[in-house]
């Protein structure tokens, strides 16, 4: 079973596209985006009421500057009085205040916005202006006051002192920042929550995968949300049924074989008494063939059950023996690899698995070049032949029982269509598998690998 999910470590592998994970994240984010855009638009509409798409404070500042610049000079004092209120002070200065520099912009964006609201021929007024925040100088925070000083073209200096108004202008930026932060927190939270929800589902998928390969793998824990507990229970019941079925099948075959063996023993001893040597040899060959049918089917049935205890053994020695046997029988077999390679496994089963692959290569591919290497924690045995190769479409089905590369192969094939199926069952019982590739230079390459 996989370890409990650590919510802080996000993932070993990113989830696949179109997995439930990304779908859930996408739905969450889309919902959030729509709601925040709507909310932002509503806020803006309220702030902008009457003057759509104009930012109120810079717009008002630009209007006042333009009125003083272009209006009647005699009316300036009247305008000043008309505009003065508790949150806007308007003053006309004779000289530039010594504490401010011309062109000192505490906030560049505000200056540019005011300039943008002025007619093109008056935009130059802002070149000499100063804008600053008397109370808090750091933009982005809540600002209580904004001062704007603009020299008019006739030499008068206009000072605008907005109080308790900056907050309105900065509200938008502050809101956007807050929403952004909120979005980040929400996204992070969503990833963690969705992962937590999906973790049991992933465990179910992994366990189902494992059971498909090895029916004796441990049952999945019946824990987590109610729905998944049900799935786990159903899976465990199914695994038990499959295991019982395989056990029954093996016992049935073993029972048939046992009963046949007693009769066949008598038959075998009677054959020995046949007087004519040629007839006797033929009868014994037929007899051995029958025994091979029984043993091959039993081998296949037992390949899915682990009866043989694992032990440390020399795999290289075992493979070299098989290659030597084939070579001694006049076949074109070759071994490439170390003289020794000690691993932990079931030697009889693995010997059968590799023997079947070598037989297969010699039968259908004319030769067998067998290589062995220990790759970290993995044992890798490759068997290359020079036959026609295996089409990609056949690379899985060829391992099904009773399949042969060609129907022309009669019953004298050594494993009756069970050799490769047996090999795959044995390797999967060892936690590994066997795959097929194209061999460089032509032919098939069977690759058996399993954790050693």
């Amino acid at each position, binding site marked *: 079973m996989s370890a409990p999910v650590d919510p802080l470590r996000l993932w070993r592998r990113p989830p696949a596209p179109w997995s439930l994970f990304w779908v859930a994240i996408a739905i969450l984010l889309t919902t959030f985006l729509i709601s925040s855009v709507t909310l932002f638009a509503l806020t803006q509409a309220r702030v902008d009421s009457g003057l759509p798409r104009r930012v109120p404070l810079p717009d008002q500042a630009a209007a006042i500057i333009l009125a003083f610049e272009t209006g009647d000079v005699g009316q300036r004092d009247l305008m000043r009085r008309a505009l003065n209120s508790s949150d806007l002070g308007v003053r006309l200065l004779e000289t530039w205040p010594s504490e401010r520099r011309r062109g000192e912009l505490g906030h560049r964006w505000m200056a540019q916005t005011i300039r943008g609201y002025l007619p093109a021929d008056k935009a130059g007024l802002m070149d000499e202006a100063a804008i600053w925040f008397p109370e808090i100088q750091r933009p982005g925070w809540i600002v209580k006051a904004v001062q704007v000083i603009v020299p008019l073209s006739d030499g008068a200096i206009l000072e605008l002192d907005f109080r308790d108004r900056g907050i309105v202008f900065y509200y938008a930026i502050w809101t956007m920042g807050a929403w952004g932060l909120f979005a980040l927190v929400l996204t992070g939270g969503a990833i963690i929550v969705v992962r937590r929800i999906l973790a049991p589902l992933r465990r179910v998928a992994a366990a189902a995968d494992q059971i498909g390969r090895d029916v004796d793998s441990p049952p999945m824990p019946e824990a987590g949300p109610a729905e998944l507990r049900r799935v786990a229970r159903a899976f465990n019941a199914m695994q038990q049924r499959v295991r019982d079925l395989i056990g029954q099948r093996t016992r049935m075959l*073993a029972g048939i*074989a*046992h*009963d046949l*063996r*007693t009769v*066949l*023993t*008598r*038959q*075998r*001893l*009677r054959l*020995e*008494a046949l007087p004519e040597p040629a007839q006797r040899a033929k009868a014994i060959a037929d*007899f051995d063939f029958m*025994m091979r049918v029984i*043993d091959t089917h*039993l081998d296949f049935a*037992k390949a899915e059950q682990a*009866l*043989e205890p694992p*032990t*440390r*053994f*020399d795999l290289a*020695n*075992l493979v*070299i*023996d098989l290659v*030597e046997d084939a070579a*001694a029988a006049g076949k074109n077999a070759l071994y490439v690899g170390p003289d020794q390679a*000690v691993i932990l496994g079931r*030697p*009889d089963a693995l*010997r059968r698995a590799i023997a079947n692959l070598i037989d297969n290569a010699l039968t259908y591919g004319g030769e067998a070049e067998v290589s062995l290497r220990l790759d970290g924690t993995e044992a890798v045995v490759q068997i290359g032949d020079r036959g026609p190769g295996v089409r990609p479409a056949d690379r899985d089905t060829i391992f099904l029982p009773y399949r042969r590369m060609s129907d022309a192969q009669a019953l004298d094939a050594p494993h009756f269509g069970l050799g490769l199926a047996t090999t795959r069952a044995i390797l999967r019982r060892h936690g590994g598998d066997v795959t097929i590739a194209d061999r460089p230079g032509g032919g098939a390459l069977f690759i058996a690998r399993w954790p050693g």
Partner: protein
Amino acid sequence: MYPSLSTAAPPLVLIVDDDPEIRAMVRAILTQHGFASVEAEGVGAAHAALRAQAFDLVLLDLGLGDGDGLDLCRRLRGEGAQPVLILSARADPIDRILGIEVGADDYLTKPFHPRELIARIRAILRRTHAQGVANQSRSASALGFAGWRLDLVRRELRRADGALVHLGDAEFEMLALLVERAQRVVSRDELFEALHGRLPDPEDRSIDLRISRLRRKIEIDPKQPAMIKTIRAEGFLFTEAVVPA
């Protein structure tokens, strides 16, 4: 007839099997190869026969009409007398291990080649005879040499680090014979006879092939063999000191 087994009287074998035809035919094969034998059809009859006389070996079927052969085997070995060769239709490796664990000396699956049966019987008799002469004890079920361990009942060879080295049936028989007769020359004919229960054709090269395979497995340098030496015109000599393990 067989110089390696020249004893005054022919070895006496008890055949325990509930199938009368199999008993009769096994008996015929034994007689043909120079053994004397007595038949018993079940556990009761086997006990009676064993009380009546001493046997050199018991050929034991497992599924008997009046009881389980494994129980009989356990009791026989408890009394510590004659070696047991189980002859059973139960073909699973686990059955073989069970049989060995209750004290059988060897396990042969039915149906069997008659030559194989004779070879296994001879191997057991040779072993018990050699050990009986050496120390009157049959305790050595495994032999050690130069860090290697040859388990005679499980029929397996392990290196000093415990790793199993696969031996074919014939290789095992040859190595067992050489190791049991360490420091003495074993002739080609003796090796062949131990394997096949008959004398070889002059052209047969299988002994040399198997010797070279054994050397590849246990010698440090198979090209300069130090353990299994070839003695010209005589046979092979196992040079290492062998101890019960």
